[in-house]
């Protein structure tokens, strides 16, 4: 791992308009992502956690411009991706790939596995048929699939194997970075362990960088070097994984961590219970967006937005109390 940032996200925003009535007038905006900044270093895994609706998936897709962000910058390898035209972007996508959550809907059911994995190669490189075939076979082996299964279709595989197909496809062009959007959350625990181990192995072998998006705090902790916690479209806390899990500062991170069930019946502990639910997307809270559920709120919280700043030790946090 070097200190050089491979990917830098600066003040990324995505606001979805909400339309109503016969004239589809815009009546408001859902701020799915509202000013997110972080960087991904070469060879590192950056974890992005948060509950449903916090905007973590939107961040992942905005980085690749699968969703067009409203504002911000995504600098990858020195280029601002948001300023590129379609052809330039297509070139870049070879080295910046994505793995999706649902291995059932992210593979084309009418293409056999060989074609699915070969598609990025055929689109990006001019290689002869035989060469492509060898390459696909090699890719399949590297993710633990048997090359004999090349002519089979996605429905013939189990969930874990399909996720491996998705990984092979992402690896096809030797990418530098992969956005992993909940890659294991649809899988059973024993299969989840297989896929996590595979991702770790591939990272070591190919010096990959991952942005690992998930809601499962234990999985994120296990795989990440640095972690950011999101709440309602913003990062509330960001630090190295050890620092974040052992010394959480933001009240939301503290509550989130205390809510994770620990698989050890001997451990007793104090749980911080949050009141209520995440506010609806159109009811944007004033000031700190977490103040409606925060157990430690003070008056200031509902009035002023906290600034996201470095509290030392590369531990970033957005809270008035710290």
């Amino acid at each position: 791992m070097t200190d050089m940032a491979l990917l830098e996200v600066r003040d990324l925003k995505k606001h979805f308009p909400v339309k109503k009535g016969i004239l589809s007038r815009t009546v408001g905006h859902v701020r799915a992502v509202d000013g997110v900044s972080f960087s991904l270093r070469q060879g590192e895994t950056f974890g992005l956690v948060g509950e449903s609706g916090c905007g973590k998936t939107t961040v992942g897709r905005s980085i690749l411009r699968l969703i067009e962000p409203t504002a911000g910058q995504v600098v990858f390898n020195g280029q601002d991706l948001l300023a590129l035209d379609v052809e330039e972007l297509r070139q870049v996508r070879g080295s910046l790939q994505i793995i999706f959550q649902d291995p059932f809907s992210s593979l084309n059911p009418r293409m056999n596995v060989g074609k699915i994995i070969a598609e990025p190669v055929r689109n990006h490189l001019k290689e002869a048929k035989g060469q492509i075939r060898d390459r696909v076979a090699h890719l399949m082996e590297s993710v633990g699939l048997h090359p004999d299964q090349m002519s089979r279709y996605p429905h013939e595989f189990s969930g874990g194997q399909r996720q491996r197909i998705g990984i092979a496809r992402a690896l096809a062009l030797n990418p530098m970075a992969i956005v992993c959007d909940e890659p294991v959350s649809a899988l059973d625990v024993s299969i989840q362990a297989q896929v996590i181990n595979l991702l770790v192995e591939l990272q070591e072998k190919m010096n990959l960088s991952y942005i690992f998006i998930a809601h499962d705090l234990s999985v994120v902790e296990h795989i990440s070097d640095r972690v950011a916690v999101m709440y309602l479209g913003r990062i509330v806390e960001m630090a190295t994984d050890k620092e974040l899990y052992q010394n959480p500062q933001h009240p939301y991170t503290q509550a989130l961590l205390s809510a994770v069930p620990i698989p050890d019946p001997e451990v007793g502990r104090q749980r911080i219970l949050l009141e209520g639910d995440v506010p609806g997307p159109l009811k944007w809270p004033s000031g700190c967006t977490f103040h409606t559920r925060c157990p430690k709120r003070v008056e200031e919280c509902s009035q002023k937005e906290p600034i996201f700043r470095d509290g030392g030790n590369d531990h970033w946090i957005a809270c008035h109390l710290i």
Partner: protein
Amino acid sequence: MSEQSGPLLTIRGLRTRFHTYEGVVNAVDGLDIEVFRGETLGLVGESGCGKSVTALSILRLLPCPPAEIQGQILFDGTNLLDLDREGIRNIRGGDISMIFQEPMTSLNPVLTIGEQISETLRRHKDMTRREAWRRCVEMLQLVQIPGPKSRSREYPHKLSGGMRQRAMIAMALSCNPKLLLADEPTTALDVTIQAQIMTLMARLKEEFEASIVLITHDLGIIAEMASRVVVMYAGKMVEEAPVKELFKDPRHPYTQGLLGSIPVIGRKFDGGQRLQEIPGIVPNPLEMPLGCRFNPRCPRTMPICHQQEPPVVRLADHRRVSCWLEANKRDD
């Protein structure tokens, strides 16, 4: 665990199979379990191990055919499988009730929350409309739904996931059931909401003195909620143990693998980044392997594992393992 008069629920030799066009699927294949008064029994396993089918078989919520349920399910002395339609309907939602995983699909979208809860009450408790409504508001208050009076007039889609699950719990508990079957009650929820629901369930269980069968794939939830655990694999029980013993001294290779494959916060700093994985996948239910069903994935197979099904070895009270390793230890 109070055992005044034996177990509340005894399942003996439960076999639930489905007749499909491709063949017969034995979803649950010879299950023996007991549930005692006031306890929480955890039922763990991965998708397709038969844990949900077990719960559905208890309440006979499976359409027969294609399903076929055999064995004995003794609840308070009566075999639920012998009851006629009217008999089982008196049990459902009354003495035994169920909480489902997906609160959106298991609540009726065209009835208000209040109508759904009072329907149960009027069916089982012989209440008038007004009494039932009053009780329903009480129940919603008990599960901490804010503004229970107005909420009871709302339709399920207006409630958030956590609130819907609370409404489900209110409905399940409204008739003071003796047994609550909770099928992945928090799987669809976010962690902070999951923590709220788990705390609520633990509190209400004490208040209502009900027994719970908690079905989940999450070993973290089992560790926090259950007093006893039954681990299932491919339709069979592989191990039964009090919760502390299961985590401290798992005997079946499958349980060991399961415990090793979950990432635990903080563990990687002393254990490294490699998780212990269980190789391979769950067998196809139409082509179960010969002998022990776990043998294709087991790291410690012996020749006999491929030939004969392992016997259930009783190690102590509520401590059973179905594995040749233990059976052989016994013989030595």
